[in-house]
C-alpha cells in the first residue's frame, strides 16, 4: 500500500498526521433504544420522553429489536464480525443532559467486531490508490439529551427528546494519514449507512457526528500522543479540525512542549480547536455490566435475515456499473448517493442503455436538477419517462439536439416524450430526398465557402453541417446529413 504523502512542513522537518475517527450515527428507528418514546426530529421539547428516558426510579430498559438489527446489518455491510453474544455496560458520569447518571453503552463486549471499508483513489485529493481503512468495532449506546445555553442569562435549558435514542458508535483504526483520507472515509461510511438504511446520515440534524482523534509524528516513528476533538458535524469541519489540530501539535512539539492527551472542542466559525479543560478524573467512567440488562444473544435465524435484507452496496454497485460499460467517473458519481443509484437503477430497469443513460443522467439530468434546485427524488421527470426519451434518441426518432428540447418541455409540463415529439413535430427526418434538397440550397447560398472547402479548408465541413441542421430546425438525422454532404462536396 502506498502511504499518503500528506506532510506538515515543520522547522525540524516533515511531520505525518495520524487520524482515527469515532463516528456516532443515529440509528433509524421509530422508538428509542430502551423505551417506546418516539425519535422524530424537531418535536416540542420533552414531549418524546418516557419515564425510562427521564430515569425515574424503578424504570427498566427493554432493548428495541430494530436498533439491534440495524447495527448488525451495518456491521455486515463493512464485512465485520458480528458477535452473537454481546453485553451492555454502564458508563458513569454526571452531566445535566444525562438523567440516569450513566450512559448505557457497550465497552467490553460490543455487538460488532473488526471490519473495514475502502476509500477510492482520488488523485486531486492526494489519495494515490484505493486504501482500506480498518474499523475496530461498532457498539450500540444511548444518546444524551440536548442542552441549550442561549435562552436564559443564568440557566441552561434541557430537552430530553434525544435522550435514549439509539446510536451506533463506529470506531475506526488510526489508519488515516491526511484530512482528505478522513473526508473520504466519512463520505464512504455515510454512503454505506444510507444504502443500508441504518442511519439517514443527516449531519446538519446531528444524526451523524464525529469525534476526531489526531496525533503527529515524524514518518516512521511511533504514534504520538493524541487529542480528541468532540462532536464535529460535517465532513468539511472534520477536515478543518484535523488541519488545525495537526499544525497546532507540530507547533507545540517544535516549541519544546508536549501534547497533553485531552478532549478539545471545534469552533466552526474560526476553524480552530480549543481545550475543554475538563477535570482530570472526568474520564474515570467506572464501567460495569448493566445489571438491568441480560447479555444480548443473537441466533443464526436473526443474523441470516439481517444478511438477506442487505441491498447492493456502493462498491458492488459501482463494479456492476463499470461492467456495463459505464465510465469509472460516471459509475462513481451515480453510486455516491443512494437516491441517485436508485433512480439510475430504475432507469436501467425501464430499458435504458447503460452508457447512454449514464452520460445523460450525469450531464442533462443533473444539470437540470441543479438549475431547478431540486434533488433527484423530486425530479419532475420519472425514470420511465427518461427511458422513453433515451429510446427515442437511440432508435433515431429524434436527434440528440432535439432530445434536449424535448427534455426541457418534459421538465415544464411533465408530458411524455413521445407525445411531445408527436405534437411539436420534432421527429427527425431521415428522408434523403428532403435532406438533399436542403443541402443543395445551403451549398448554393455559400458558393464562396464551397470554393474554400474544395481549396483545402476542410474545417468548413462543420459549417455546412450546422447550416443544414439549422435550415431543418435540428430535425435532420445527423448521420445522413454527414453522408449526403460528403457526397455533395465530393
Amino acid at each position: 500500500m502506498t502511504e499518503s504523502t500528506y506532510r506538515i512542513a515543520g522547522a525540524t522537518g516533515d511531520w505525518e498526521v495520524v487520524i482515527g475517527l469515532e463516528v456516532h450515527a443515529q440509528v433509524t428507528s421509530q422508538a428509542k433504544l430502551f423505551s417506546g418514546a418516539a425519535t422524530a426530529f424537531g418535536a416540542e421539547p420533552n414531549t418524546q420522553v418516557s419515564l425510562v428516558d427521564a430515569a425515574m426510579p424503578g424504570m427498566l430498559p427493554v432493548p428495541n429489536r430494530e436498533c439491534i438489527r440495524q447495527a448488525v446489518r451495518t456491521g455486515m455491510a463493512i464485512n465485520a464480525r458480528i458477535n452473537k453474544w454481546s453485553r451492555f455496560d454502564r458508563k458513569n458520569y454526571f452531566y445535566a443532559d444525562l438523567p440516569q447518571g450513566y450512559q448505557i453503552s457497550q465497552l467490553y463486549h460490543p455487538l460488532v467486531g473488526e471490519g473495514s471499508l475502502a476509500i477510492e483513489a482520488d488523485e486531486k485529493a492526494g489519495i494515490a490508490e484505493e486504501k482500506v481503512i480498518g474499523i475496530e468495532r461498532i457498539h450500540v449506546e444511548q444518546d444524551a439529551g440536548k442542552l441549550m445555553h442561549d435562552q436564559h442569562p443564568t440557566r441552561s435549558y434541557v430537552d430530553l427528546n434525544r435522550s435514549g435514542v439509539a446510536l451506533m458508535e463506529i470506531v475506526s483504526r488510526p489508519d488515516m494519514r491526511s484530512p482528505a483520507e478522513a473526508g473520504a472515509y466519512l463520505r464512504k461510511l455515510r454512503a454505506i449507512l444510507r444504502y443500508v438504511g441504518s442511519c439517514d446520515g443527516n449531519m446538519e440534524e446531528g444524526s451523524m457526528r464525529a469525534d476526531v482523534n489526531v496525533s503527529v509524528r515524524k514518518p516512521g516513528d511511533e504514534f504520538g500522543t493524541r487529542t480528541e476533538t468532540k462532536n464535529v458535524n460535517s465532513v468539511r469541519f472534520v477536515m478543518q479540525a484535523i488541519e488545525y489540530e495537526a499544525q497546532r501539535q507540530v507547533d507545540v512539539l517544535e516549541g519544546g512542549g508536549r501534547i497533553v492527551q485531552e478532549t478539545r472542542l471545534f469552533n466552526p466559525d474560526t476553524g480552530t480547536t480549543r481545550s475543554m479543560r475538563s477535570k482530570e478524573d472526568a474520564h474515570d467512567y467506572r464501567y460495569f455490566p448493566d445489571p438491568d440488562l441480560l447479555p444480548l444473544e443473537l441466533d443464526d435465524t436473526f443474523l441470516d435475515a439481517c444478511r438477506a435484507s442487505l441491498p447492493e452496496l456502493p462498491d458492488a454497485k459501482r463494479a456492476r456499473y463499470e461492467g456495463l460499460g459505464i465510465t469509472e467517473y460516471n459509475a462513481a458519481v451515480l453510486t455516491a448517493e443512494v437516491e441517485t443509484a436508485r433512480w439510475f437503477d430504475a432507469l436501467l430497469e425501464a430499458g435504458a442503455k447503460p452508457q447512454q443513460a449514464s452520460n445523460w443522467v450525469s450531464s442533462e439530468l443533473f444539470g437540470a436538477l441543479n438549475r431547478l434546485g431540486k434533488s433527484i427524488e423530486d425530479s419532475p421527470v420519472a425514470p420511465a419517462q427518461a427511458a422513453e426519451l433515451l429510446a427515442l434518441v437511440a432508435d433515431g426518432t429524434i436527434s440528440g439536439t432535439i432530445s434536449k428540447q424535448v427534455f426541457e418541455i418534459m421538465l415544464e409540463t411533465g408530458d411524455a416524450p413521445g407525445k411531445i415529439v408527436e405534437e411539436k413535430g420534432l421527429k427527425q427526418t431521415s428522408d434523403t430526398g428532403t435532406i438533399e434538397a436542403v443541402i443543395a440550397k445551403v451549398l448554393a447560398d455559400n458558393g464562396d465557402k464551397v470554393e474554400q472547402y474544395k481549396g483545402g479548408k476542410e474545417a468548413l465541413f462543420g459549417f455546412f453541417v450546422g447550416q443544414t441542421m439549422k435550415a431543418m430546425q435540428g430535425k435532420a438525422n445527423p448521420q445522413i446529413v454527414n453522408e449526403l454532404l460528403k457526397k455533395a462536396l465530393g
Partner: protein
Amino acid sequence: MSVDLTTVKRVASLARLAVTEAEAEALVPELNGILDWVEQLGEVDVTGVEPMTAVIPNTLRLRDDVVTDGDVRDKVLANAPQAEHGFFAVPKVIE
C-alpha cells in the same frame, strides 16, 4: 484489593456524594471489610464452570420498534425544581 482514604474520597466525589472527613475515615475499614469478604469467593475452585449471568436461565427480551410511550411532559417535568417553556431549567453548565 483494598482502599485507602484518598480512594474513598475520590469515589465519593465521582459519585457526587458529600462525605465528611470523619465519615470518609470510617468508611475505609467498612469498605475494606466488604472487599475482603467478596475476595473470599476467589478461593473457590471454578475450573470448568461456565460463567453465569443469571440465576434463572433467561435471555434478554427485545421490544418491537413501535412508539408506545412519551407525550407525558407534565409528568416528566413534575419533579423538576425549575422548568420553563417545557424545558428543565438548570444552572448554566456551559464549558
